[in-house]
């Protein structure tokens, strides 16, 4: 029996009807928002368009390690400085968090009860306290360090004070480019040797000392070249002049606070991921590899870690994404990243909220997509391949 609604009970018609309805409502909402927004913008005398990007910014950025920034530079340059600062703290944070997280995850599984409890306490505290609070706490510790005049001296060349960490700045002289070329060539050739050795081992079973030969290529060859060229590298040491240091490389407390908080917070999550990954490899794998006479270190490197990585990499990717997004909290301590520099100060100066926020959001989206893209490629390369 057909219902008296007739064609409405037809699935195809219903699906088209509902989708048209949704699209129509969405378009109506969009039209409403756009028209009220343009009215509001006009009424508040807020300019629109992208020309503000070419206007001089009129403020200084204290931390811009890659680009020289003056207050006469444009808002567009503020954006680039912000992106570079975001990337800097995200990449260094990801590397540090991965290293620390792997170490802690393995220590957490150690047979030493005290050590594993200690890591457990660290993980719980670090995971359960808001990251923003941790960033602010680190910052407040760092700015309570001694003043510049009484700065702590480490190894005679590093100075630590409430203005940050001052270290010698390397100055590369003309010949140094050859050394860097040599390093790149050594990296490529050790990668090729690795592939060749693997192929040869698969074919003939003969092993090749890949590790020691790569070390030799990467470190010793460029080092010899470095001395032949007459050591084309010198250091500019920071010197105390007046109230501040002149010269040298300075790492600001804002960056150090962000770096420490982000890596320590994320390392807690990563250590749990690593622990779960290693525990997911069945006990039989370890026993089987011990039974065929593999060394303890080899069992870890050749049997356990490759299988654990399959479990570890997908959640690790989302931790990297989280860390990158969390780097936007730099605004709380005045770290001139994308949100603070461009989405904060530039936005307040120009009043062009929609344009600024659109750019900031689009940038974060593209960073996130790039990270997931590369991590997905890596993930595919380590997943189990059926032969």
């Amino acid at each position: 029996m057909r219902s008296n609604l007739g064609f409405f009970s037809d699935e195809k018609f219903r699906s088209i009807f509902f989708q048209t309805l949704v699209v129509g409502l969405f378009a109506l909402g969009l039209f409403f928002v756009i028209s009220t927004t343009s009215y509001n913008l006009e009424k508040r005398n807020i300019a629109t368009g992208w020309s503000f990007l070419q206007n001089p910014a009129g403020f200084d950025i204290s931390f811009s390690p890659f680009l020289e920034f003056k207050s006469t530079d444009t808002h567009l340059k503020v954006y680039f400085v912000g992106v570079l600062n975001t990337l800097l703290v995200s990449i260094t944070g990801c590397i540090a968090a991965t290293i620390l997280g792997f170490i802690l995850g393995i220590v957490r599984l150690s047979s030493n009860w005290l050590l594993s409890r200690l890591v457990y306490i660290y993980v719980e505290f670090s995971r359960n306290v808001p990251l923003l609070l941790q960033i602010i706490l680190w910052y407040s510790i760092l700015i309570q360090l001694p003043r510049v005049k009484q700065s702590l001296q480490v190894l005679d060349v590093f100075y630590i004070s409430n203005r940050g960490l001052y270290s010698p700045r390397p100055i590369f002289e003309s010949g140094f480019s050859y050394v860097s070329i040599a390093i790149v060539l050594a990296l490529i050739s050790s990668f090729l040797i690795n592939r060749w050795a693997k192929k040869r081992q698969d074919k003939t079973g003969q092993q090749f000392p890949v590790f020691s030969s790569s070390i030799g290529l990467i470190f010793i060859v460029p080092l010899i070249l470095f001395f032949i060229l007459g050591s084309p590298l010198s250091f500019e040491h920071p010197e105390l002049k007046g109230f501040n240091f002149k010269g040298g490389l300075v790492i600001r407390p804002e960056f150090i606070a962000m770096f420490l908080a982000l890596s320590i917070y994320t390392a807690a999550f990563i250590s749990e991921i690593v622990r779960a990954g290693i525990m997911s490899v069945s006990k039989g794998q370890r026993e089987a590899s011990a039974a065929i006479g593999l060394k303890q270190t080899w069992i870890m490197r050749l049997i356990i870690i490759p299988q654990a990585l399959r479990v570890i990499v997908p959640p690790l990717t989302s931790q990297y994404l989280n860390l990158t997004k969390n780097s936007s909290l730099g605004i709380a301590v005045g770290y001139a990243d994308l949100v603070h520099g461009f989405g904060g100060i530039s936005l307040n100066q120009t009043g062009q909220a929609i344009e600024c926020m659109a750019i900031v959001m689009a940038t974060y989206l593209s960073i996130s997509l790039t990270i997931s893209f590369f991590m997905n490629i890596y993930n595919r390369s380590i997943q189990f391949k059926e032969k």
Partner: protein
Amino acid sequence: MNEMNEVRKPPVATTGIIGWLRINLFFNWTNSLITLFVIYCLYQFIPWILDWTIFSADFKYNYLGEQITNQEMCSRNLDPENGGACWAVIYVRFYQFIYGFYPKVEVWRVNLAYIMLAFALLPLLYAKLPYRKYFLYFTYIFPVIAYFLLNGGFGFTEVSTNKWGGLLVTLVLGCTGIALAFPIGIMLALGRRSKLPVISMMCTLFIEFIRGVPLITLLFFGMVMLPLFLPEGIDMDGLVRVLVAVTLFQSAYMAEVIRGGLQAIPPGQYEAAKSLGMSYWRMNLLIILPQAIRISIPPIVNTSIGLFKDTTLVIIVGILDLLGIGRGTLADTNWLGLSYEIYFFVSLVFFIFTFGMSRYSLYLEKKLKTGINMGAD
């Protein structure tokens, strides 16, 4: 034969306390060295931290016996050699930490709301609560009661949200965000798995967009852009704007978690429901969602923990939550320089809530593992 089976006790060194110590702490000499080193570090650290936080700390009075009213009177500022933490700042500012600037006469309303919140949460947390059904009715109407109780109306004098602060704001943001994000998240998850391409695409775009940008940009969006999008005359409250952003953010994450639960439901369940002639909504409401939500409760609690911690971000757009009150207190010349005490206290409060939630999620996971049968096997 029986003589052969005579029970022999295990060697002393593998049982009891000594055995435990040998296996877990002094297994071999590297392990023993590590243990000794850790014990030495703890021996150095624990007395110091206990001394700082408890034994030489000021709670209300300094070591001269005076009641502390500003940081100069803290023992550690009077005598740096002897003083520990100065908890008096928490004691003096406790009201602000818990209620913000809520008028003192009306504070019973907040207290009542806190108590009612506990009763509203009870039936959600304990499935075996007696008379759970009636408690659940209360849970459903609690948001309405809490709104009028805290904000005013129905004979209560109005207390505008800019007077709210501290734990009150943290809890309002956390609870409302989670409660509102839950139904929106379900709709988004269903939408993303929908067979209608337009709806599925729109939901996917929304979820991926929100998950791809940091919460702080959404808060800016709520604070700076939302007023531009709305017609004149609609002036949104600051707290509401932040709530919109927090809810949008949380609902995208909630949607992904629930989608995970939906994917775990075996297709037979869908087919069985359809073969009984159920419509899409009846099938989802009666058959699919109850099972999907049940298995996704642990990850839902986990994202809720994340949201609870992320509510601190509102201080960046000028809302004074617990951390905001802490920073405000530090900016007061009376309490300058007491950052460790204040941050320690705020961390502790957050830790109690989030650690409690994570324990609860572990308990649920254990319970679900033993209690669930997915029907697939």
